[in-house]
């Protein structure tokens, strides 16, 4: 299987879907002539032309709403948020239009749209450019939320998202763009709503999504040396959440650690913890622990930023705790 970057995987997914279906178009800041702020759309303007690859003014609310309208009227927009931090300006159109039009219209107005871009922290980008807001989108009925961690998932899930007839919030990661992995060639759709066990294990379940999956796998590898077999489960899709796979894993390991980059209070991990205690109450041998981003706006200073982000060590500590190893 070819080994490509997460960036290239996303690029292939968009290219293939745009070739397959003329109604698919890409819109966002710098996606065209500039080839994308993070070069995800490299070459797409050349291949598909300015009718289908549109550079927008800096008007997140306007062009996201325009995308929703275009989707209502039969197109299949891919809207790139240069980063998801800027989606806050568009959130009214995402929540009040994209997520509700189908329901409010009694099923008449479908909004097949993908809103994609990097979420979470980069490197020292400061408080306004380092937010992981997936729990917000997960809260909203009518939206689907996808957070791939590997190139293969990125490609397979983006293709499925573009074909989905609902609005999909597709959250990537600046830090993952350069990572490499095997990606099957051609048509390989990964269904939305299906988790994957990234690493099997029987002593503890570590649940992580997006780049935290890599942190979890790191920790698992290290733990193995201590004879601790951690199972790493990646939901891949946060909404709808594949609770069956998560619960099944916890029922086998009886212990759970949830890792997320975002803020702790009302984070996605809280919902996952609630789901686990509800469905696996009698199987739990220890409280569910969460490893999250620090409960602060992201500081610029490197040393402070480092303290904010979950790392291998903190995940291992949590695992030790749920195993009462210290």
């Amino acid at each position, binding site marked *: 299987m070819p080994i490509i970057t997460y960036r290239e995987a996303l690029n292939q997914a968009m290219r293939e879907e745009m070739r397959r279906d003329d109604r698919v178009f890409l819109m966002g800041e710098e996606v065209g002539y500039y080839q994308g702020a993070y070069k995800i759309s490299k070459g797409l303007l050349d291949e598909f032309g300015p009718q289908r690859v549109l550079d927008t003014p800096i008007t997140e609310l306007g062009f996201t709403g325009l995308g929703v309208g275009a989707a209502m009227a039969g197109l299949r927009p891919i809207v790139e948020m240069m980063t998801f931090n800027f989606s806050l300006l568009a959130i009214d159109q995402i929540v009040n239009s994209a997520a509700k039009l189908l329901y409010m*219209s009694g099923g008449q*107005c479908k909004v097949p749209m993908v809103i994609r871009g990097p979420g979470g922290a980069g490197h020292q980008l400061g408080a306004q450019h380092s937010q992981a807001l997936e729990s917000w989108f997960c809260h909203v009925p009518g939206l689907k939320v996808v957070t791939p961690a590997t190139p293969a998932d990125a490609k397979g899930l983006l293709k499925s998202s573009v074909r989905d007839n609902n609005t999909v919030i597709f959250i990537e990661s600046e830090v993952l763009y350069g990572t490499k992995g095997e990606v099957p060639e051609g048509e390989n759709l990964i269904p939305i709503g299906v988790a994957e066990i990234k690493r099997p294990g029987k002593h503890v379940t570590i649940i992580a999504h997006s780049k935290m999956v890599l942190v979890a796998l790191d920790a698992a590898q290290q733990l193995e040396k201590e004879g601790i077999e951690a199972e790493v489960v990646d939901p891949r899709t946060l909404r709808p959440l594949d609770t069956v796979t998560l619960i099944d894993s916890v029922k086998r390991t009886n212990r759970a650690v949830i890792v997320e980059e975002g803020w702790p209070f009302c984070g996605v991990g809280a919902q996952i913890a609630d789901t686990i205690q509800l469905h696996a109450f009698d199987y739990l041998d220890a409280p569910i622990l969460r490893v999250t981003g620090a409960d602060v706006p992201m500081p610029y200073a490197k040393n402070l930023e480092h303290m904010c982000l979950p790392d291998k060590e903190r995940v291992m500590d949590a695992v030790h705790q749920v195993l009462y190893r210290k």
Partner: protein
Amino acid sequence: MDSSNSAVSAANAAEDHFAEPARPTQEDRARLTDPAVLKNLLEQMLLVRRFEERAAELYTLGKIGGFCHLYIGQEAVGIGAISTLRPEDSILVSYREHGHALARGVDPGEVMAELYGKQSGVSEGKGGSMHLFDKTKGFLGGHGIVGGQIPLATGVAFASKYLKQNGVTLCFFGEAAVNIGSFHESLNLAALWKLPVIYICENNRFGMGTPVERSSALYDLSQKALGYNMARAQVDGMDVLAVRDVVMEAVERARKESLPTLIEARTYRFMGHSMSDPVHGHYRTKGEVDEHKRHDPIKLFTATLESVGQLTQEDVEEIDRKVREVVEDAVAFSERSDDPHPSQLHADVYTE
């Protein structure tokens, strides 16, 4: 560099494509208009008026709930404008959209049933007064967030151009909506990308209780188009034929040249902001409302049609009888329709 820039700006100074408020009287226009059209316009205005008068009663009886914003007094705008459209065209409106839906030919029974919250409503009872949708008619809502429909309409126009369907999109909003960001972002996008959309600002003088003079630094709202190099027009929104003519021009511009237009229609709201709002609160006097009622678009139009000999008193009464029947049928239909089945609660949150 400055020179190169000024070259640019010379090529692109805010040209003011201002369509003079058209001079002719309503009589003049009537004489130039197909009698069938005139009759149809009057019928629609009366239908909307009677429909909403009845809706107001039903609201006080508790048959209709939630927010209910009446269009009474503004009928000439929506009806004149929508009379210029073709089937392939689209319409998006704010929450004050009963009149536009009816003008577009959405079934009165299904509209009333929606206000009742019945399964047989246009939006299956899930939308209510603020969220009427009939996709088969290109009627795309009914939107409750001020300005929310403006980017959406811009996108619908974008799709029509992208798909080469040659459709035109009408986007209606109130004068208070011009101050919100989505108006600004959308008009720039439409002008920049040359989209076939017509923005119709229904200036009824108030956003709830706030007069335009206290919400916008510029009162001559069509001039907002200057900031986007967009064609603009201002029209007497109480004159259904004047509205029709101005919008027809804009539709032409959109369909032939794929260019947007901003139109300000000066009108007035005869009722309260919504059914939960008094007709004239602290923010305006009964005198002011009565003064404006003297310009009732239906009264004006009926008088015109009679004066130019297009209609007799009897014709008018005949039409009125007819529309009242339509309204009563709509009420009867709504009364006998079922509430949505409980199983509908979780339907259409997502689609296959």
